[in-house]
């Protein structure tokens, strides 16, 4: 029996599932006006209707009686592909961000996690190249390779989570919430592209801060330039002996910076290390070899995972707290938790049954990126 009904949670769950009001009303057998009234809090649905809503929206029934969730608004988020994204997809991604905040807060209550140490520079203080140099200096990185982007960001307090599978065409997004930087990454891309995405989002966090949204083409271009400069510092690239490098040499050299062949080729061209002609022919050749959409290397690079989540779940297990417990505390199905850490946690995360519901997950088992 649901004693309290939180209308905001119904709106939230519907956004997250990416279902229109009309479509949902139809499936649960009420009129769109009735559903609108539930969402406005005019009156609460019956227990039976709540059961149907929970089933359709993939949340436990108790989800609707918990206090309102911290909702991330479109104005707060840097979306990489905002222009080509439907509003439904965008809202669904934002909902994942909100659950990420809830999970992060839950972990914060139990564990000491790294404090936020990401500068948010004043708008337009520097060009992306200089900003990348400045951040490397502040983080005392020198020109060294970023061995593991996710670990480095986590060490500086960025909370990193995974995007749900149905949002694979959202590359990644990031936002500040209560002074903490968050990133949701697509963990199904190639390791090199995943690293670049994370560096791109870092660019948004430091250059565009918590106030300079929504994104536009210019902001995206700036974040890309930041990512390239941060991963491949100009001075190091210039000294690397890649002048007029062949495609074979580029393929060999890309591991030095942990970037895709295309990203390195672009950077070499940007810095004048290879000529226009070499750049064009290298792009053509790389496309022929299948390097436009991924990195078909004989020896693929290792996928980056989360050190914070890995250690956090290990500690929670030691204290007898399973994924099911966390999910129950957050009033979500373990499956939703699974989605948030998919590809980031490589060891088994123990879990149990989630209770009733169509989307019941049979516990969280081995979680790996594709």
């Amino acid at each position, binding site marked *: 029996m649901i004693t309290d009904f939180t209308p905001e949670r119904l709106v939230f769950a519907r956004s997250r599932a990416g279902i229109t009001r009309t479509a949902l009303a139809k499936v649960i057998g009420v009129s769109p006006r009735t559903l609108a009234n539930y969402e406005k809090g005019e009156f609460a649905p019956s227990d039976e209707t709540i059961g149907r809503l929970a089933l359709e929206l993939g949340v436990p029934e108790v989800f609707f009686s918990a206090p309102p969730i911290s909702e991330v608004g479109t104005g707060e988020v840097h979306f990489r592909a905002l222009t080509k994204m439907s509003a439904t997809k965008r809202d669904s991604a934002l909902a994942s961000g909100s659950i990420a905040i809830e999970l992060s807060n839950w972990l914060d*209550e*139990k*564990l*000491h*996690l*790294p404090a936020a140490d990401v500068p948010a520079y004043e708008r337009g203080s520097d060009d992306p190249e200089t900003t990348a140099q400045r951040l490397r200096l502040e983080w*005392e*990185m*020198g*020109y*060294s*390779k*970023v*061995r*593991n982007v996710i*670990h*480095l960001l*986590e*060490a500086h307090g960025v909370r990193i989570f995974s995007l749900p599978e149905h949002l694979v065409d959202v590359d990644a997004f990031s936002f500040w919430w209560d002074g903490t930087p968050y990133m949701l990454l697509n963990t199904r891309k190639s390791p090199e592209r995943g690293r670049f995405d994370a560096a791109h989002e870092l660019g948004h966090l430091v250059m565009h801060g918590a106030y300079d949204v929504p994104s536009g083409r210019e902001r995206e271009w700036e974040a890309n330039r930041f990512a390239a400069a941060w991963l491949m510092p100009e*001075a*190091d690239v*210039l*000294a*690397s*002996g*890649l002048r007029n490098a062949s495609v074979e040499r580029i393929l*060999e*050299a*890309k*591991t*030095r910076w*942990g970037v895709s062949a295309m990203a390195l080729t672009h950077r070499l061209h940007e810095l004048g290390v290879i000529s226009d002609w070499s750049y064009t022919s290298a792009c053509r050749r790389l496309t022929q070899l299948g390097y436009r959409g991924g990195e078909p290397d004989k020896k693929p*690079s*290792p996928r980056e995972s989360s*050190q*914070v989540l890995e*250690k*956090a779940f290990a*500690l929670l297990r*030691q*204290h007898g707290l399973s994924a099911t417990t966390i999910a129950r505390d957050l009033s979500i199905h373990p499956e939703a938790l699974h989605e948030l850490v998919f590809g980031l946690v490589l060891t088994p995360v123990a879990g149990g049954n989630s209770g009733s519901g169509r989307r019941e997950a049979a516990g969280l088992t081995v979680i790996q990126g594709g």
Partner: protein
Amino acid sequence: MDLHASSEPAPLATTIHADDRGDRVGRLRSMGLTETQLAKAVQASLGGFTSTTAYHPKSAPGTYGYHEGTAGLRRAVMPDGVWAFDENDNQPRTYSMDYGISIVVQSGDENTGLINEYEPRARNPKGKATEKKVLSNHDHPVLFSLAPEPVLDHTGAQVLTNWVLLITVEQNVMRSELSLPKKFISGKPCGWVERIILSEIEIGGGDAALGEPDVDSGPETDIDVAWKQ
């Protein structure tokens, strides 16, 4: 570079604090220091070390590492309010009158941070100022646990114990130790009374030449996640 050639067998009387030995945390606390502060200094040194490319002179990583290590140490301890720094006799030291100690950063040799039959040395010979300070450790009452009050010299100035933060990069590992010498041979502090061995930092690269790219190069990040009591 004179590495093994100048290595002296480790003195038997050296007190060693390390990960699995002694009370490193407690010893550092008694000196007004934390492991985190020294780790920050070493991390800063690593930042300097990695601030070089194939175009830099070969000596640049060590030089930059020394400069940044010194600055990093000061950044880490100065906010405590009990530390100061100066550069008398061209010797950039960081010191605390409250704790009666002074620290200089030096590039160490391959034995730095290792507990073996050899004792570590600085990579490069030091001058008269360092010699004087190191030799003043020799008879310092603190070494004989006889100094409840600040020790003063004949001019009334406080005599500090002079520690060396040795930092080295060897085969993709950055090792460091905060150690107290009492001898000075061939221009280098030695005869360690006490060695506080700090945690290693794994790195890669360092070699700016492309040659065989190492996918794992770059400093490794170790994040502390702990249960809240």
